[in-house]
């Protein structure tokens, strides 16, 4: 009998087939329908904006991060998510800068994958919002001509964008907040409204999120907790003052869907404990309603999530699991 060269490894000698790159790439794959919806509604502009923000993320990761990290798919997620929460008409160079900021200051300065406190894509968007407030709040309408650009996507850096013949409109939230107009819920659900690239198709995002939850790649407690909190608070405020929007409008308008399903559930920046996830979701939902109803902005999902990201270490600490056998002991019967 020949004996092989024996190898010695530590137990467990079995491992689940999941791996970190597999999770990341699955999330990317699950975003394909959302991207498709964005392209369907916003045409070539969607492709350009997404490509630019993706390029910003990947180039930054490649230059300043570890090149191996490109393969794990996490920078791709950041690029896609950032692109999806930008308006279709934004110049490409701005999207690129946003992507670079997201990876550089959102992830790499903290030490790379797994070390960051804030969701990189949202940090990139927050930066863009501060730097280019006008470009970030110009929402092109859905056009008859699918091939037309929805804004001056090709503008050069630091040049004021040409006044392209573009019709703009306010988002449903803007209409609600500043002009007291509501939008039909069905339009919100299928995304026939103004808004960022990926935030308009609520139903599609929900379905993709359900798939990820089924694969256990996102903690379903976070979106469920956010939805429940927002719906409950909106029902309450709507009952008190009918001028405030009802729960369905609150759930399907603005970035709540993509924020709750894809941004808040980012594993790195959300709590590790299940109890913590409920609390975190509640916090986000609460802040969203407060900002939307009483804040100066029409939309509050981004800041709500970033704020709760900052609290995650405290949430984790406060919600440590109760170790087996440390509860009050049941007397032996």
């Amino acid at each position: 009998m020949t004996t092989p060269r024996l190898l010695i490894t530590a137990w467990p000698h079995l491992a689940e087939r999941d791996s970190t790159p597999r999770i990341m790439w699955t999330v990317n794959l699950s975003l394909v329908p959302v991207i498709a919806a964005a392209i369907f509604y916003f045409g070539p502009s969607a492709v350009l904006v997404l490509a630019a923000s993706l390029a910003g993320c990947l180039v930054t990761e490649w230059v300043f991060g570890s090149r191996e990290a490109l393969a794990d798919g996490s920078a791709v997620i950041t690029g896609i998510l950032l692109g999806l929460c930008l308006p279709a008409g934004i110049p490409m160079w701005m999207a690129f800068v946003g992507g670079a900021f997201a990876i550089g200051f959102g992830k790499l300065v903290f030490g790379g994958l797994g070390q960051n406190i804030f969701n990189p894509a949202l940090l990139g968007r927050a930066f863009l919002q501060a730097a280019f407030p006008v470009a970030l709040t110009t929402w092109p309408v859905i056009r008859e001509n699918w091939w037309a650009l929805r804004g001056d996507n090709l503008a050069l850096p630091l040049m004021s964008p040409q006044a392209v013949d573009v019709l703009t409109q306010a988002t449903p939230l803007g209409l609600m907040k500043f002009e007291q107009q509501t939008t039909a819920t069905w339009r919100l659900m299928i995304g026939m409204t103004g808004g960022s690239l990926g935030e308009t198709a609520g139903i599609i995002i929900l379905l993709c999120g359900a798939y990820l939850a089924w694969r256990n790649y996102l903690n379903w407690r976070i979106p469920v907790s956010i939805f429940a909190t927002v719906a409950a608070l909106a029902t309450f405020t709507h009952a008190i003052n009918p001028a405030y929007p009802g729960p369905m409008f609150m759930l399907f308008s603005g970035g709540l869907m993509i924020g709750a399903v894809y941004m808040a559930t980012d594993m790195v920046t959300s709590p590790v404990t299940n109890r913590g996830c409920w609390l975190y979701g509640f916090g986000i939902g609460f802040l969203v309603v407060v900002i939307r109803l009483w804040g100066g902005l029409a939309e509050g999902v981004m800041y709500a999530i970033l704020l709760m990201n900052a609290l995650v270490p405290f949430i984790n600490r406060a919600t440590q699991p109760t170790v087996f056998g440390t509860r009050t002991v049941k007397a032996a019967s």
Partner: protein
Amino acid sequence: MAKRMKFSHGVHPPELKELTEREPIRRLPFPDEIVLPLSQHTGKPAKPLVAIGDRVQRGDMIAQADGFVSSPVHASAAGTVTAIELWPHPSGAFHEAIRIKVAPYDAQVPRKRIIPNWHGLSAEEIVDAVRRAGVVGLGGAAFPTHVKLVPPKDVTIDTVVINGCECEPYLTTDHRTMVEYPERVHLGTRLMLTTLGVDRAMIGVENNKPDAIERLRATIPDDLRERVTVHALTVKYPQGAEKMLIKSLLDREVPSGKLPMHVGVVVHNVASVATIAEVFETGLPLVERIVTVTGPGVVRPSNLIVPVGTKVRDLIAACGGFTETAREIVFGGPMMGAAQASTDVPVLKGTSGVIVLTDTEVKPQKAYPCIRCGHCLDACPVFLNPQILGQLAMYERYEEMNAHHLQDCMLCGCCGYTCPSNIPLTQLFALAKAQLRKQPQAA
């Protein structure tokens, strides 16, 4: 029993038992040489009673227990003692062992009963016989069985739990024992109920072994029918961990740092129970055991009865040898078993399985940074936070790990199994525990 019997968390590794679960137990011819380490159990090693050149009969005590928490070692085959020296031990280190050259034409039958018939023995006499027979837990930890039969005076035991879960993938020793020797399980249970003076025994079996459950239920002796129950449990790792099993069967939580007896329970592995019956039946001490030799790396996976001290090379030869891609030998189950460096390592009393893995299973995995997915928290059956423990371990902040209940970790491997970033969490915790044991006063 409307309530569903379960414990929380845990993982679902592939069962992989189909390789051997229908293989009847085979008996091997005696090997040429037997190696019996003096440390085959938890507790102090035994003290040798023989010298080089001595002739020994099968069943002779060749090393005696050193204290109460210790266990004697018996010659598992007739032959000549050729050496008492350091020999590779399944724990990975070298340990003192007695080597016996087996006499090829010896009858291998002892002259007279060494262990008396149990009929008419008092509880103390039964415990003493179990102690002298060198019976230890056969599930892996090899804790001397007689110690568990004499609980301290300040605890009251109300239930004996017989562990037939066999939740580790691949292994089928307990399964085959229950299918082929259910009467022994019941006799062993009867003896335990007698010695402990307890009214109730519960046998827990994972429900992936319906034939074992059926056989056990069908063979309960009439007078035990009121007192012994067989329970089908969900298939989940680590169902067979003492604390988890007690939680599933009785919904009692063993307090942190305490033992099952503190909630009125004694847990015995089903193979140990059957062995107690076996030593009284045959009159021989514990000299042989059932081992599953399996895995994709052996040609003919089998369940074998072998003398304790048989070298693993003899086992694998009896199973048709290694396959081309064989790469790693694991003693015990794949979740908690230890890899072996040599084929000279002998089977101990507590070796329930020998698993040979191939290149496919042991392919090195790249470790990624922790992405805080929280899967390890959902896996840990004792509700630890392996995520934070793992980070502390990487920075060697071992004392802080104690504050996060490191000592409640039973190294079951669930966290390491589930981690998508392939962080060797279980290994880190084992290391941390070892470091803390080394310097208990440092704080």
